[in-house]
């Protein structure tokens, strides 16, 4: 092995123990091994020189061997606790994973209309799981995709049949509880059939105060004319490390519309790449991130237009306070064949304190000549003119500032088209606003 440090030894031992104690099918076992081999050869991307992809995010704290795979059975979680703390509706099909392990008793899946919503190990899963898993978030995608694949046990597999019209939400809920500095590797694969519609929510929450390390990987495959409305909700605690990798593969005339919400963990990364690999595909990536204290949230968002007539939007907003830091590194690549591409990028930030820092870097890389692209980014404090205006109507300064923050966030929150989820995110934003204000200048 090449990983010589404490993390390397610990992960190597964990991987060996995993292969013995948590056997999986042959093909998955091979996939695991390829994941491990890759991670073993590259390790965590902690280099500080020449490491453009991780320029703003230092993972040294993650590389000290603190976190490891836990072999204990996931602790019991009361259903009421989930209903209270997680986005939840009994109208949704929900798969629950506690510390990375599937919980059949907490999950509730409505059957019907041919949709498969199952844990990976379910023998009823179609061949599509095997042919797609690890194809779009390959092990050589990044260290975390490799690590996640090496430690594959459970995961959410969603197969949407062709022409399905029902869009009642499918929810993949990944919960971390306290105890033992856990590293967990949530995994999601969604394959949507031709001209199908679906709504998929991924959410990540922690129930305890203790920090964990979560490295989720999600793969989305959209066949011709498929539409997925996607939500990603990150509400883990302030001690958590969360390095997420999302890979989306789109065929012709498919539409992927995603809204991400991230409440800053200690160190967070939302790494999304969408490949528009056939003509006429459309993708919208919206996001809201809120950071305070010493939190760090890195949004690494990229879209590749490989074929003509595609449309893409990246629209992220951030509110930063305290000594927190956030990154928006948005990239749109328009390849030579991708004529008539339309691509728009925007990142807007409210920076409430001098200690907070936003590094925003929208970039367009265009190799086609007939395209329409635009990008922009801003960072500023709440507008003093607006505050005075509101004060002149009898609204005190703190309330006025909160209203402006709420208004700023609402542009993204209002895009959430699932009622129960919008209410949940709205509630989290309301809870956080006073904390952001307390750490503002």
């Amino acid at each position, binding site marked *: 092995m090449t990983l010589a440090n404490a993390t390397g030894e610990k992960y190597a031992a964990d991987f060996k123990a995993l292969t013995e104690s948590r056997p999986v099918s042959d093909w998955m076992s091979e996939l695991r091994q390829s994941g491990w081999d890759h991670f073993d050869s590259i390790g965590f991307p902690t280099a500080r020189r020449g490491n453009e992809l991780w320029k703003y995010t230092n993972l040294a704290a993650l590389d000290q061997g603190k976190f490891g795979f836990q072999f204990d059975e996931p602790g019991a979680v009361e259903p009421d606790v989930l209903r209270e703390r997680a986005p939840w509706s009994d109208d949704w099909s929900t798969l629950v994973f506690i510390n990375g392990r599937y919980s059949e008793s907490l999950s509730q899946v409505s059957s019907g209309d041919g949709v498969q919503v199952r844990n990976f190990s379910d023998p009823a899963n179609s061949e599509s799981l095997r042919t797609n898993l690890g194809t779009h978030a390959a092990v050589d995608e990044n260290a975390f995709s490799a690590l996640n694949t090496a430690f594959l046990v459970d995961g959410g597999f969603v197969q949407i049949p062709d022409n399905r019209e029902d869009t009642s939400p499918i929810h993949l809920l990944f919960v971390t509880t306290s105890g033992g500095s856990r590293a967990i590797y949530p995994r999601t694969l969604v394959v949507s059939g031709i001209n199908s519609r679906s709504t998929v929510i991924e959410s990540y929450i922690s129930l305890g105060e203790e920090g964990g390390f979560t490295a989720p990987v999600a793969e989305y495959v959209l066949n011709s004319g498929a539409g997925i409305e996607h939500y990603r909700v990150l509400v883990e605690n302030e001690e958590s490390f969360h390095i997420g990798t999302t890979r989306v593969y789109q065929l012709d005339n498919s539409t992927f519309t995603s809204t991400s919400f991230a409440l800053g963990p200690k160190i967070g990364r939302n790494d999304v790449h969408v490949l528009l690999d056939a003509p006429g595909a459309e993708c919208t990536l919206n996001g809201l991130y809120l950071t305070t204290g010493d939190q760090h949230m890195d949004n690494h968002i990229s879209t590749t237009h490989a074929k003509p007539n595609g449309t893409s939007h990246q629209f992220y907003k951030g509110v930063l306070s305290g000594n927190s830091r956030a990154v928006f590194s948005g990239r749109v690549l328009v390849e030579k064949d991708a004529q008539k591409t339309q691509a728009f990028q925007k990142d807007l930030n409210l920076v409430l304190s001098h200690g907070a820092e936003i590094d925003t870097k929208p970039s367009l890389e265009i190799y086609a000549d007939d395209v329409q692209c635009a990008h922009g980014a801003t960072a500023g404090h709440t*507008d003093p003119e607006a505050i005075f205006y509101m004060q*002149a*109507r009898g*609204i005190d300064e703190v309330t006025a500032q909160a209203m402006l923050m709420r208004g700023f*966030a609402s542009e993204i929150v209002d895009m959430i088209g699932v009622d129960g989820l919008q209410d949940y995110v709205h509630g989290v934003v309301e809870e956080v606003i006073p904390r952001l204000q307390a750490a503002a200048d």
Partner: protein
Amino acid sequence: MLQVTDLHASVVDADEEILKGLSLSIGAGEVHAIMGPNGSGKSTFANVLLGRPDYVVNSGVVTFDDEDILELFPDQRALRGMFLAFQYPAEIPGVRPWQFLKAALDARREYAGEKPLSVRDFSKLFDDKVEAVGIDPDLVKRSLNEGFSGGEKKRNEMLQLEMLEPRLAILDETDSGLDVDALRIVAEGVNSLRSPDRSFLIVTHYQRLLNYIKPDVVHILVDGRIVETGGPELAITVENSGYEQYITAAMAD
């Protein structure tokens, strides 16, 4: 109601004073107009009265109902019954007029020891006023003032004036950029609110708004001071002969 004595004010961090000893007194139920050439300090005065943080008061006294208000925050002045209709209303992204006015009215009622209006009662009041002021109902579904035309912004200021029913309303060049129809709406709003215990201070460059709102007292402000005070006829004089004579006289001082 409002007593201003020898008020001196300047822009924060600037040496030169804009208000150089301004004094005036507005009684309950009176409508006063302040007229003056560009740069005379009219808007500064209107904004200083509400405590805009861009200005600093160097000396002088301002009392509202015999209370010294210069140490009060803008919102505390507003809660006591002062109102400024802005010349350039700020855009409030993500906040709808409805939400904004509910928050403002709730604050005012709480200060007065009253319960906030129920959503239903508030909505009814709001809808009635929106109709009365002639605002496009679609407009109030948008973010406050965002993408509003000049005229729409001014109507929206009048909506707020009617909803909040202040005791002293200061209109800062509300007439600028308005067509005759909008001007009439502003005037109707003000006239309908005139009452023995409500006063108005109308800041304007031109006399034309005063054709619709008849002031009790007209002040001419030049170079940071009131140089002439008279009845409504003073506005006509200014309209006919301009500010030149007052400027010349002020320069000669």
